[in-house]
């Protein structure tokens, strides 16, 4: 019955975590390491490391990895991944329906104005949380970050191109 448990656990994680992947990690750790012991703590650290260095949303990456590791097959990965994504899809559909209905409402319009200021803060916070000694190992990291910002903000360099260039620069520098 591990498949059902994987699905329901990740569904719960998807439903009750706000603020995206990094905010979800402690919750995932609590459920899969402490509560169900599907993976050990050191395996979890590995999974997080892999999830951060592979493309795609971290929450989806780690759900897939944990689902696969704990069962040894694709069905487990599928159960965990669909579990973590389904609440998103349901809530977003509800929001969409609600907003299409009330988009002319002055309350909704004002709510949006307030929300946007809050969201700028949330995104800035997400960036700030990643400025850790593990991610910014030396002065070169800061220079890379500033150069990347300048090239994509003012010179509209494509983010995908930027990632490839950064990867190449990393191999040369380190």
């Amino acid at each position, binding site marked *: 019955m591990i498949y059902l448990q994987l699905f329901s656990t990740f569904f719960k994680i*998807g439903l*009750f*975590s*706000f*603020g*995206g992947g*990094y905010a*979800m990690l402690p919750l995932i750790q609590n459920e899969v390491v402490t509560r169900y012991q599907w993976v050990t703590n050191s395996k979890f650290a590995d999974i997080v*490391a892999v999830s951060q*260095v592979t*493309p*795609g*949303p*971290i929450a989806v990456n780690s759900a*897939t*990895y944990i689902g696969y590791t704990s069962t040894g097959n694709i069905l487990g990965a599928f159960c965990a*991944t669909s579990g*973590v*994504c389904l*609440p*998103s*899809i349901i*809530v*977003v559909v509800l*929001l969409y329906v609600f907003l299409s209905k009330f988009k002319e409402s002055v*309350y909704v319009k*004002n709510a*949006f*104005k*307030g*929300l*946007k*200021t809050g*969201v*700028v*803060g*949330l*995104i*800035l*916070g*997400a*960036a700030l*949380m*990643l400025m850790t000694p593990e991610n*910014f190992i030396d002065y070169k*990291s800061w220079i*890379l970050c500033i*150069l990347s*910002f300048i090239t994509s*903000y003012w010179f*509209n360099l*494509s*983010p995908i191109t*930027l*990632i490839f260039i950064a*990867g190449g620069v*990393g*191999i040369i*520098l*380190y």
Partner: protein
Amino acid sequence: MYQALELFFVFFKIGTFTLGSGLAMMPQIKKELVTRRHWLDEDEFIDIVAVTQSAPGPIAVNLAVFLGLRIAGVKGLIATALGSISPSFIIILLIAMLFQGIQNDPLFVAAFKAIKPASVALILVPVFTIAKRTGVLGVKFIIPVIIALLITFTPLSPIYIVLTSIVIGILYYGQKNR
């Protein structure tokens, strides 16, 4: 149908090549949907970014699903959901099955030492795009800075920021327009 397929490939491509967080995908999503294809304008895109931050779950999936639904209805939703989730799913399975320990490979490690700060820069880009567009650059920028510090250094959940912003928006702008 054609539009839904195109949506699938756009999100599949973004999902395959963007690293780190869903937030780092935002500049690329905007480029593909707003700048290149004109499927929605920048203001609406920013509204959608704001809404999807207030939904639970992975932000990249929230954003993908909302955009898919808005641009091409239910077909669009299915296209963007699959497009944004499947690259992760496939890549992680390949790693788990075939390339265990890839995170310790020296070349990989070196590349990521530079990719991580670059990804942080990609998250900072929408901060300034949205701030500029909504007029919170300048003195008012202190508000997002305080929020960011609260989120980073206290265990406060982002959902409270979302709810407070909505309430303040309704009260503040409601009063102003009276």
